[in-house]
């Protein structure tokens, strides 16, 4: 969890962590209710009714033993406010503590309780069972956040990529003299292009881009001496205009020959003014080329003979 820090939140961390983990849904509450239901009613039956068949089965393990002890032990450890604080003194678990919450069998427990309600407590009539199942589905639906709440988008291609990605890749290779051209894309395409075509090298990695999108890159930082990546991020990622010679020095020093921008972004004229030439266009993107003074000589290292060397222990020690 990027937005939470154990050192800052202290003993309140776990509450905030659970809050963020289940943000906007009631599944943790449903889990607690399900455990209580399976442990109390599952064991003794309701109002003197006989035990449900699942509990009477001689070889069956009682539901209370399945869910309750594990939850109690998780409450003492993972959900314990002291635990993340203590753990964080040994390892940095700030970003990944939420994964301990995966250990709770939330969905299994809720679904099991639901199934028992339908078949053991809703009576034997099919209509009553169907009505209770529908009621449980309504609770699950209304108590959560739907995966496609912002709309269902069918995949545009079999590659699960925008249709223009293969086209952009083809146009760059058609224009490039080398096998491994280096390019700079806008945020989404920068994250996607190498999934489709790993022979296109990128000027900027994911972390730097994310930092830029989070406000880590400004006009001032882009203008700093030698801060070439910030210049590319400022222009292509954030649409900040910097002097043309600053952009050219960034392209030169990062060996970036291609810049791909959305045609509608208004960046194309600026980039042309900075000395780049348009080499291709797709429906929504323009591919621009920068002719470097010094071309990057990117070659894959030759490992064909290296394997004959036997690694020594000191090779692995810093």
């Amino acid at each position: 969890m990027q937005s939470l820090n154990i050192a800052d939140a202290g003993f309140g961390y776990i509450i905030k962590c659970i809050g963020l983990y289940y943000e906007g849904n009631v599944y943790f509450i449903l889990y607690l209710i399900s455990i209580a239901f399976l442990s109390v009613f599952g064991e003794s039956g309701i109002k003197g009714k006989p035990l449900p068949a699942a509990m009477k089965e001689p070889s069956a393990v009682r539901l209370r033993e399945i869910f309750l002890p594990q939850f109690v032990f998780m409450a003492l450890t993972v959900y314990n406010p002291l635990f993340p604080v203590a753990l964080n003194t040994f390892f940095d678990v700030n970003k990944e503590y939420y994964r301990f919450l995966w250990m709770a069998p939330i969905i299994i427990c809720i679904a099991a309780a639901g199934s028992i309600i339908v078949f053991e407590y809703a009576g034997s009539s099919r209509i009553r069972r169907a009505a209770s199942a529908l009621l449980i589905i309504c609770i699950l639906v209304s108590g959560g956040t739907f995966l496609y709440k912002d709309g269902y988008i069918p995949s545009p291609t079999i590659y699960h990529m925008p249709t223009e990605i293969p086209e952009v890749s083809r146009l760059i290779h058609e224009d490039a003299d080398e096998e491994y051209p280096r390019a700079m894309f806008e945020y989404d395409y920068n994250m996607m292009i190498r999934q489709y075509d790993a022979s296109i090298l990128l000027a900027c990695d994911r972390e730097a881009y994310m930092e830029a999108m989070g406000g880590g890159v400004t006009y001032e930082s882009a203008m700093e001496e030698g801060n070439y990546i910030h210049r590319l991020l400022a222009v292509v990622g954030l649409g900040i205009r910097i002097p043309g010679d600053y952009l050219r020095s960034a392209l030169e020093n990062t060996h970036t020959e291609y810049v791909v921008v959305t045609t509608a972004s208004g960046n194309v004229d600026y980039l042309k003014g900075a000395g780049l030439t348009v080499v291709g266009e797709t429906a929504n993107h323009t591919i621009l080329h920068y002719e470097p003074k010094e071309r990057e000589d990117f070659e894959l290292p030759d490992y064909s003979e290296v394997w004959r060397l036997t690694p020594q222990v000191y090779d692995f020690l810093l």
Partner: protein
Amino acid sequence: MTEASGAVLLTALNFILYFLFGAALTASKKRNMSLTGTVFAGLFFYYLMFTLCCMPVMFRWRPLHVLTCIWGAVAGIICLIGILRGYKAMGKCFLNAFSHFRKNVSAFIFIAIITAVFIGVVVYSYQFTLDASYYVGSVTTALQTDTINMYDPFTGDWLDHYEMRYFFSTFTMNDAVLCSLLHIHPLLWCKITISCTAMILTVMVLYMTGNKIFSGDMKKISVFILFAVIADFFMITIYTTSAFLMTRNYEGKCLLGNVVLPGIFYIYICLLENVKDLRLWRLLFLVALGAPVLSSSANMLIPAMIGVTIVPLFILRRDLSVIPKSLVCMLPGLILTAVYIAYVKNIIVFYTYPR
């Protein structure tokens, strides 16, 4: 579209491999073989064997195609062993499964429809996730450069040392090897084949757990699966296991959250019935060995999950032998965690070249 259909059909290949690996390990003339149990054990045995083949190749800086040849041969041999060891048991296993199916046709059709809708809706949708740039990117990078983890998937630049976080979790390299063997684009393999595989495995573990909880009552199991699948569509924040299952199902972490951890919970339910069953303890150990290959997060989560299920088991069954057995099962994860800490503390590093 033919390619996409082919990628869907390749899901069956994954299950055949898991089943034959499981058969090679567990088949016996004396015992009945369970279809789901064999696939479950086979999944972990498969990835364990893969990483045992991958590590020496990485240590000697050999190319991906060498690993592809080795793995093709090893997997072929293990599948053959599985067939030879288990062909009699397999016949009985399939007959039992078929007879179980015939007795509960409507319930199985209901589960099949739920699963098909579940997979269809998710796999047909378009999801943009940042982590794909690593998990799919590393597969395309490995194939492009014919190397194993030597290049940065984000930029394509050469790395001078292996990133330890991903060093032992060779899941993506298995994807690369299979893409190489089957001549399929990594995007099709990861976003269709592995997605389908992960979702079917999730339903399979739900079925196994439901089968235990409801003592084989298929009506209850089918409604249990229906509720679980609906919950998966709605328990969505960026952190939940459901979100990983629906949007990042080509990652090892998805399998960790939706198959491995619920799988350990299933083993816990089985152990409650018979705490002395050595086969269950061996299965738990196999899970502990195989899971770190899927995701490095397993290094910490598997010992933790074993802890939160086995301590209650010890208290409930008052069997002292639970403690040493569970400690042994925690060992692989703890050792790998220690190696990772040594890397973070700059004690060890694995270079991508001889120094």
